[in-house]
């Protein structure tokens, strides 16, 4: 493989061609990546030409180049946002010092851990979504799935670049391990729990991209503040791509709601059985999916009190969301933050040192952002005249990490007994029957311009192309 000219094959703005050590490392990793893609990437996609957006540079013109390409031949580029001269660290104990272009020895292990944890989610989601192409509700949606898949692949490249470039042999070993772990594998699972869940159907996929990729957005945004400048610049660029993933989720759920509301109005009913018989997903089922994905995702932010979070912040490795827009001292030694705990059959807040509560701070920012999108879904219902509103469940509902783990809190925020919670869980979380029903709707529709019965067409096509454009060419 040494004949490949990586500086040409991989669009990059990191002078790949001039760094022989890095080039050799990537030459060894690249065939393993392709082999991973072939093994576990999108099923049945090998011969398809997909209308993909490829980034060939970080400026607005190079950002979105559209054309039909085979995913295996996608140009997995390595891009860092342009460096800011004399960038200084904005928070923590090193506040005001010059940002680091190399990894300080004392923070090496923690930085590697952050990068590996982030990097591990990228191939994991490709693995989770690999069967979805077989049940796509339209060619347009299939293309969006594939776009997400290749960009997750590119994000893996971005993290692997950092590992190879800045972490020597350890980094190379970690990069190899990223291709060895498998989502849901009992012996060698992905690092984070939510990335070992399956994505069994398109409603789960849309909920996942809305809620769980939004976790990605907040984690990446916190890393764009990092004192380690290459990480900050890499994640800044990744965020731009992450926006597409959330768009797929938000618009996917929105179109599902729109179609359900349309059928509810046509049939003049909110009867779940009648709606299911008409082949659309009833709103209570949508609510249960929402409850599940929201609660599983907010666990990803970690324990509400965490000394690791404090260390990452104080040492400058990971900031808060929009650190620059906050008007406190950005050191946080004397500040406190309220966290929720279950106590004596109820919930109460406890003031804890803010540094230890930074996971909770990020989680609360995330929740605010998530709620706003759910309100936009509700507008679809309001517009259709349907008197039903979706609700984000209480923060303490169905939690499996931190002080709220196993607290038996209902979506409305009421603490109930263990027996009651278990007895009523089917009201709040998707039952096997719900999942089986949703799965029963998942027939493949890939004729250009046609859509499965359970979902409305989008408002507009990709890159201003018509909705009936041949976004995927099956060869």
């Amino acid at each position: 493989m040494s004949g490949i000219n990586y500086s040409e094959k991989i669009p990059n703005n990191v002078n790949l061609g001039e760094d022989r050590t890095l080039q050799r490392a990537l030459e060894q990793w690249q065939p393993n990546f392709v082999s991973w893609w072939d093994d576990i990437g999108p099923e049945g996609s090998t011969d398809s030409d997909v209308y993909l957006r490829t980034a060939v540079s970080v400026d607005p013109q190079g950002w979105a180049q559209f054309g039909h390409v085979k995913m295996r031949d996608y140009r997995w580029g390595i891009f860092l946002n342009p460096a800011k001269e004399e960038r200084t660290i904005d928070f923590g104990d090193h506040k005001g010092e010059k940002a680091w272009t190399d990894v300080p020895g004392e923070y090496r292990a923690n930085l590697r851990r952050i990068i590996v944890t982030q990097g591990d989610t990228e191939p994991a989601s490709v693995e989770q979504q690999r069967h979805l192409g077989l049940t796509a509700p339209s060619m347009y949606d299939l293309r969006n799935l594939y776009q997400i898949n290749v960009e997750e692949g590119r994000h893996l490249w971005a993290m692997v670049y950092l590992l190879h470039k800045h972490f020597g042999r350890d980094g190379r070993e970690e990069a190899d391990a990223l291709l060895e772990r498998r989502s849901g594998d009992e012996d060698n699972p992905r690092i984070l729990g939510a990335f070992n869940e399956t994505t069994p159907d398109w409603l789960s996929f849309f909920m996942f991209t809305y809620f769980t990729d939004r976790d990605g957005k907040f984690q990446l945004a916190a890393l764009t503040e990092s004192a380690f400048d290459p990480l900050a610049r890499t994640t800044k660029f990744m965020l731009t791509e992450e926006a597409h993933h959330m768009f797929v989720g938000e618009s996917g759920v929105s179109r599902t709601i729109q179609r359900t509301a349309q059928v509810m109005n046509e049939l003049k009913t909110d009867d779940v059985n009648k709606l299911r018989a008409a082949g659309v997903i009833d709103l209570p089922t949508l609510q249960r999916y929402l409850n599940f994905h929201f609660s599983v995702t907010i666990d990803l932010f970690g324990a509400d009190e965490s000394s690791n979070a404090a260390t990452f912040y104080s040492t400058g490795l990971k900031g808060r969301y929009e650190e620059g827009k906050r008007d406190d001292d950005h050191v946080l030694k004397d500040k406190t933050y309220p966290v929720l705990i279950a106590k004596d059959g109820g919930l109460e807040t406890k003031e804890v040192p803010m540094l230890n509560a930074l996971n909770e701070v990020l989680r609360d920012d995330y929740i605010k952002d998530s709620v706003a999108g759910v309100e936009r879904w509700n507008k679809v219902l309001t517009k259709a005249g349907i008197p039903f509103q979706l609700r984000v469940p209480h923060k303490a509902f169905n939690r499996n990490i931190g002080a709220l783990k196993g607290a038996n809190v209902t979506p409305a925020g009421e603490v109930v007994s263990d027996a009651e919670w278990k007895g009523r869980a089917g009201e709040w979380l998707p039952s096997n029957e719900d999942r089986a029903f949703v799965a029963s709707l998942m027939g493949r529709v890939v004729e250009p311009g046609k859509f499965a019965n359970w979902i409305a067409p989008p408002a507009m096509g990709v890159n201003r192309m018509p909705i009936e454009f041949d976004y995927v060419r099956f060869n």
Partner: protein
Amino acid sequence: MSDLAETTVINQHLIDPEICIRCNTCEATCPIGAITHNDLNYVVDASKCNSCMDCISPCPTGSIDNWRQVLREQAYSVDDQLTWDELPEQGELAAPDVAAPSPNTSGGGSVGATIAPKSAAQPQTLLFGPSAATPYARATVVGNHRVTDVGHDYDTHHIVLDFGETHFPVLEGQSLGILAPGVDAAGRPHHARQYSIASPRHGERPGYNNLSITVKRVLEDHAGNPVRGVASNYLCDAAVGDTVQVVGPFGSSFLMPNHANSHLVMICTGTGSAPMRGMTEWRRRLLHAGTYEGGELHLFFGARSKAELPYFGPLKKLPSEFITTHLALSREPDQPKQYVQDVMRAQAPELARLMADPHAYFYVCGLKAMEEGVLTAMADICAAHQLDWAQVAGDMKRDARLHLETY
């Protein structure tokens, strides 16, 4: 100036709140901070947005690419937009005969007009391009002629493009963009290279769906080093039958008046003569058809030498009662250097009369360096003829009588 403000139509950039997912990409991308948000909406400040289009392609939803023609004074405010649930419909304009400056079209600085003459035909713009329904039109090269003797450091071609079945309507003074194939050193596609259209509205050949452009390739830079402009070389080397990708049309203000007895004063250098050729030829055809309603044509044409003047031959065949031509040659052997502003000064009384005439329209096209010289000459001519240049310039801009297109 208030008259101008009231009648200026802008293409206001708006974001569709029903499709936007509030991902913040546009706000992070905007180089001049024209985009802002509240908990409800992301919005564009019309007083800041310069239509650079940087935010368009990174938007994951397409919600960013919405435009409404509004009178500048009635542009939707940021506060209004922040409360919207949906976009407003395109309203009726109070001044429908006023052309809207389109994105990517420069107004020619503070002196040049940003609107078209009142009697100009209504232009169509941006029918093909990244933000149009179709990203480019295909045209076939049906003619490629060298129009100057080839020099050691330049080579000018007259290129005729046929659009076949594609509707690509143009007016004299508009331009188009050519997308050269391939990618640049950074691996990204080349930017569209813009060329003025050199033919009149009904085609290079009347009744044919074709048009012409003037393309000059520079072979050496000032230091004598070889240079190769990507698009210009691509076009100059194009063979008859080759297909090229075209975007546009662009331009909605550098347009000619059409009313009876309106005069054209055309000041240009080099390939800046292309729009002048289009305007002259349109009027020549009217004259030939017996439908010309009068009006004077004055051409001030600068080049380094006669050999470098495109269309010099055909120009000499036009009757002097139809057009007066003043050539300025800056590097002709055995002759003193002359620039367009020098020959303009030599015609000072005539130009003073025309500057004061509400039916005379001035067009300046060519290298950026000429703009200052031309404007200085106009100011000097005013001073020598008891005219207040500030007043004249303000009137000319307001009435769309001074158009600058320099590069």
